[in-house]
């Protein structure tokens, strides 16, 4: 059963491991590459919309105007997606850091429990965890006299933060383990306590290595926020679907869904690039 851990890290999605700067030299290459990607997407987009136009010759209201009409509503939904992603990330990171530190605890039982939880939440499908949270969390939490209501959106945030937690825990554990044991030993020989070593020596070094996979996880989470549409929370995906029903025109399917894809791309692609940049910079320093 060790199989769930070991060298295979982040089964949720792979950290964006890109080639070293050899092929397309560093920054210039990256910029070039970026513009190329956009160019291709624009080409693809126009080709597809031409195809869509052609497929429904007696066009009613223009496709562009109709898309434009729904744009504000869908954009507001998209903003909600971003909000959910930020909240889930904060919550998931906080829990994940605890769980990650639990995995290097000196108590075997804490270690084992943390490890098990980490594996469980990393390996369960996001959508199932989301269903899990939506259906099985109570509508309110009573802690002593305090009543904390759990509305649907909050449950969704919790549901999405569960896999985030598992993955952050793994990132934290991996980051800490990547620091050579020599650092621990030399600090110990200088009479630092375990806590001091961890917080003053190991974690400051490890954080740098954790940031790129953490950002990568954030991008994945942002894309996963569309799953809340499946459990009945209104997001950009739900609204796109609603707009399509309202219009009931097959020629709108392509441009509207493509617009939604582009919204996410416009948000996630820069994050991916930034992640890559940081990864390279840290790799050079390391």
């Amino acid at each position, binding site marked *: 059963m060790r199989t769930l851990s070991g060298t295979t890290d982040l089964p949720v999605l792979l950290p964006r491991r890109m*080639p070293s700067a050899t092929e397309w030299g560093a920054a210039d290459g990256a910029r070039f590459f970026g513009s190329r990607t956009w160019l291709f997407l624009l080409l693809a987009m126009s080709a597809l919309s031409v195809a869509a136009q052609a497929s429904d010759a007696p066009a009613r209201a223009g496709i562009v105007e109709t898309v434009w009409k729904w744009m504000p509503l869908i954009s507001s939904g998209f903003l909600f997606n971003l909000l959910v992603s930020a909240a889930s990330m904060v919550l998931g990171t906080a829990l994940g850091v605890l769980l990650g530190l639990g995995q290097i605890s000196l108590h075997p039982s804490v270690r084992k429990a943390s490890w098990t939880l980490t594996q469980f939440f990393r390996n369960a499908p996001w959508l199932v965890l989301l269903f899990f949270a939506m259906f099985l969390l109570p509508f309110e939490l009573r802690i002593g006299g305090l009543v904390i209501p759990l509305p649907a959106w909050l449950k969704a945030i919790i549901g999405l933060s569960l896999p985030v937690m598992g993955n952050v825990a793994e990132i934290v554990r991996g980051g800490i383990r990547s620091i050579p044991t020599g650092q621990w030993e030399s600090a110990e020989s200088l009479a630092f306590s375990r806590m001091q070593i961890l917080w003053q020596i190991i974690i400051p070094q490890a954080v740098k290595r954790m940031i790129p996979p953490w950002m990568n996880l954030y991008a994945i989470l942002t894309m996963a926020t569309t799953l809340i549409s499946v459990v009945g929370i209104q997001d950009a995906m739900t609204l796109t679907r609603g707009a399509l029903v309202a219009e009931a025109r097959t020629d709108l399917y392509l441009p509207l869904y493509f617009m939604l894809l582009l919204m996410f791309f416009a948000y996630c692609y820069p994050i991916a690039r930034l992640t890559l940049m940081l990864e390279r910079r840290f790799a050079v320093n390391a």
Partner: protein
Amino acid sequence: MQPVAEFFRWLADAHGINLTIFYDSVDRSRFLTGLFTTIWLSIVCIFLSILIGLTGALIQGAHSPIPRAAVRSFVQFFRNTPPLVQLAFFYFAVSALLPMVTDRHGVKVPLIDNVGWAIISFSLFAGAFNVEIFRSGIEAVPKSTIEAAEALGYTRVKAYLYIIMPLAFRVCLPALGNNLVNLVKTTTLAYAIGVPELLYAAAQIWSEVLNVREMMWVLLFTYIIIVAVLVFVMHRWERALRIPGYSA
């Protein structure tokens, strides 16, 4: 089977833990069909995504910049957009653009059905990741090793086949394993377009029997087991391919 069924029937009556999949034949067959569909869908997509990954990685090694840029755009687009929207995009939008075919009732139906689109969509999604994985694997093979092959008279194709690929594959295997695990988890999204996979089957059962809690645990554990089996297989494979004294 009978005592098992009896036990679960008792469990439902006495404790309200209603696992119909163990005693109701309709629900059991629904669940097993879902399980089978998930496994089958996963295997087909794993195979196709590896194929896409290899093809993409080979094209990225080409000299002409246009196919390279096309592959790169494909990879970036599929990696940076939500797989759920991709699936909807294919099933609703792209499907409407394709020519219709006439079924045996004389009605025009789409060329590709929801299962077909799920396969295409997930394979492309995971394939985009595989392209990057294989490419980084190929790039991890030292240039000097390739040169040595060249000096021994290997052509480009033969060097790929006998030296670069076997080495690159070993480097890729852990990352590939992760991505395939992820692919299996992604198959749950097919629920959104009505593909009768595991989540769909479970949702049908719980919306009729109203045993959400029980089905939720069953679902979670089933997926964990499927993933564990896949990880185990990948691990064994990795071990079988390990070269003494060589760390990838």
